């Protein structure tokens, strides 16, 4: 590792955080869609959905948090794409800096921006009546899972950011990620789904992660489910990190 890695990453992180501070609309638009879903499902569809829990917003919030992350990380691809096209990426590459710091700065920026969006969404949920008896440890565990999931999806977002030919292409990859929670236990229990759909829903990462967060919020024993959720997060993170770095190395050599 280059001896300037931490310093260079911090400088570049400061740069991207300034971008966010000067265009807070990226955080607002990230939070608006999940909040709209939350309002729609709680106040329109929620009354007809049988989840077995007392309040639908408590059932729904974990899935909404996943959607928030899935829509937020597309801004990483967007910002990286603009750097590539604008020439500032080449300027950084021709300078004596730790080369991986360029990517890490974008990834950490995504983490900060997504955490802010998540806090906004949770605040709205609290206003809508969400209550959790979870203690500090429970909230920390939820935060830990969300951080891992954000990092995993952000490293996926790095790949289209580096390779896309158009701005639309750079952000289009996130649509299937936003759609994934709909075929999971995020909105309705998987038991209500027909066979093949149910089989898919029960074996895809969002269901495992949503169930783990839901149990943590409800202070139920999480059991083996949390390990499945963590394994998904870490697994996706490692594979995405590997491919993003391969793509990056091919791009800069």
């Amino acid at each position, binding site marked *: 590792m280059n001896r*300037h890695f931490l*310093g*260079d990453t911090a*400088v*570049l992180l400061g*740069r991207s955080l*300034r*971008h966010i501070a*000067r*265009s807070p609309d990226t955080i607002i638009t990230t939070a608006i869609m999940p909040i709209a879903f939350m309002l729609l499902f709680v106040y329109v569809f929620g009354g007809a959905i049988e989840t077995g829990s007392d309040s639908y917003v408590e059932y729904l919030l974990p899935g909404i948090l996943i959607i928030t992350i899935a829509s937020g990380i597309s801004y990483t691809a967007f910002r990286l794409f603009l750097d590539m096209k*604008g*020439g*500032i990426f*080449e*300027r*950084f*590459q*021709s*300078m*004596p*800096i730790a080369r991986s710091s360029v990517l890490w700065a974008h990834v950490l920026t995504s983490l900060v921006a997504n955490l802010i969006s998540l806090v906004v969404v949770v605040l709205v949920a609290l206003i809508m009546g969400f209550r959790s008896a979870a203690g500090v440890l429970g909230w920390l565990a939820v935060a830990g899972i969300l951080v891992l999931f954000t990092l995993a999806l952000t490293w996926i977002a790095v790949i289209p950011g580096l390779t896309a030919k158009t701005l639309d292409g750079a952000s289009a990859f996130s649509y299937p990620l936003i759609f994934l929670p709909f075929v999971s236990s995020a909105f309705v229990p998987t038991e209500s789904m027909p066979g093949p759909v149910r089989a898919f829903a029960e074996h895809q990462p969002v269901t495992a992660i949503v169930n783990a967060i839901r149990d943590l919020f409800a202070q139920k024993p999480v059991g083996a489910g949390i390990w499945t959720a963590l394994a998904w997060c870490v697994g996706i993170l490692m594979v995405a990190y590997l491919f993003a770095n391969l793509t990056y190395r091919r791009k*800069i*050599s």
Partner: protein
Amino acid sequence: MLAAMSIPPTSDQVEQAAIRVQGLEKSFKQVKVLRGVDLDVARGSILALLGSNGAGKTTIVKILSTLLKPDSGTAEVNGFDVAAQAAKVRESVSLTGQFAAVDEILTGRENLVLVAKLRHLSGPGAIADELLRRFSLTEAGSRRVATYSGGMRRRLDIAMSLIGNPPVIFLDEPTTGLDPEARIEVWQAVKKLAEGGTTVLLTTQYLDEAEQLADRIAILHEGRILVNGTLNELKQLLPPAEVEYVEKQPTLEDVFLTLVGAKTEKEQQ
């Protein structure tokens, strides 16, 4: 026949070469862009690399600034091999690409501070203020770059390249898309650089730009350097000029600059 046309540099220039390129080849898929480029640039001089669009000028600059790897041949910058000692090369060079590589959302001053920090220099704020002054951007320094004109962006871009005083600077078509006044501003900035001892490799498709700025001019055509020499040496390649009497008409540029009130090069000297 082409070999006969090239003018060998003096031995003293070869010894002090800041850039040495030998037998450089590069293809993109089936297209051979560089077919054996040989080029030396003496320390502290300005070399203009002339060529039409797609001649491979940018490819040479990208190889020399470690952004691309050559297929074969060697290239040394400031005594360091671009392939084996890329990190040392990056410490020696600065690249101003074809499109102003500035951060639009940051202010001019923040852009300069950013580069100074990434070059690990102490006192980045003072360095930024000094460069803003040198490039007449002090007043604009606290504004976002998105509000700058094309000429101001280019000046900021070049100012960013000077941070840390790299001994070799690459300017890839620095005046493309600029209005005549902005071009003259950039020319003056480049001249000042060379006076300070910096080696400048400049690519351009404007012949007058090469005439204005360069100590030596190299013409890149179909992947090879056709000729390389001073302006006078190049002029001698053609038959001696015939004397004709022609009425001296002002050029359109003279008219434009007079009307908009800009100082021409001559007036300033």
